[in-house]
């Protein structure tokens, strides 16, 4: 990595990858969008875990019913909560990962001269 002038572990130990402007725009727009969607889904899941009349909870319970299974309230709650946390972590992860990219034009204290 050290010999690639465009990707670098910068001063504060954070990895930093320079990308073309066009790609940078896609990263910003889509990572933000995905992060928002995942966080919203996480809260839908938390609702399903904690709210008896949640729509999602009803649908899942009925779906189990259709195939002849009846799941208890407690396991359902735990499952929804875990999925919710997974979504929350995924959303944050997507956003955090997006923050290591920057456009070449955006500059950075180091390597200013050597960039395309």
């Amino acid at each position, binding site marked *: 990595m050290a010999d*690639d002038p465009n990707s670098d572990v910068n001063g504060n130990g954070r990895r930093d990858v320079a*990308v073309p402007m*066009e*790609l940078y725009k896609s990263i910003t727009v*889509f990572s933000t969008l995905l992060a928002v969607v995942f966080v919203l889904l996480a809260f839908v899941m938390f609702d399903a875990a904690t709210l008896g009349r949640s729509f999602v909870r009803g649908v899942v319970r009925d779906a189990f019913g259709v195939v002849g299974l009846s799941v208890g309230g407690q396991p359902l709650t735990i499952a929804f909560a875990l999925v919710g946390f997974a979504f929350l972590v995924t959303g944050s992860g997507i956003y955090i990962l997006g923050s290591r990219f920057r456009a070449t034009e955006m500059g950075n204290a180091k390597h200013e001269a050597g960039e395309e």
Partner: protein
Amino acid sequence: MSLERKDDHDHKGWMKERDLTPVESVYLTVLMWLDKRLRIVDYLEILEDLYYKVNMQMPKSHTEQYNLDNKFWYWYPLYALGSFSTIAYVVASVSGALLGFYYSPAAAGASGSPTVAYEQITFIMTDLNLGFFLRSLHRWSAQVMVAAVFLHMLRVYFTGAYKEPRELNWIIGIVLISLTMVFGYTGYLLPWDQLAFWAGQIGVEMALSVPVAGEWAAQLVFGGFTLTHATLQRMYILHVFFLPFIATTVIAIHIGIVWMQGIAEPH
């Protein structure tokens, strides 16, 4: 304006020559896949372009001509307060119309037992699905409207926007802030709880304290010198019939005049 795709950057080739971790490669590949299909970035760029083009066509305002923007810019958000009042009014109207399906203005059942009006409020708050939300929305939007209207008035005053030729709109504004407050007062009495009842008592006594016309005014507005069913019924019909028609009309005239005259340059 067309959405011709721009010459594609060779992302794949670019990625190969770069030293990316596996996570980064997958990440970028997924985002690029999405970008190629959904093209949101292209549309955002069109909007950005449009924004600048539209702005370029605007005539220079007084503040720009005399280079006052650097001193005046922090007033600009306050020009939104009139629209903010309007939005609060619309929210209050819609939530109020929905509350109207459940509330009834009857003071029957008084002396000890709760009144019909109060029982309907209790029903909305405890039994009706989303009732708590609906009533809260109505109360909050009403409070926000009072605050926004008042701050809007301050904005108009401190930017000197009341001056010629806008005196008429200032006077209409006085009427509007009065209507807003009467809206608030009549609505406050509708739950017919202790708060409402004693606020009504204060109103009657204030009316009665007026010389000469006092008794007549108390009769007209409160339907008597003590609070009865007639009082509640008057408050109700003022709140849900008279005031909505009057206030909506006056707001329309007020905004119509702003439209005709254009917004005032700061004085």
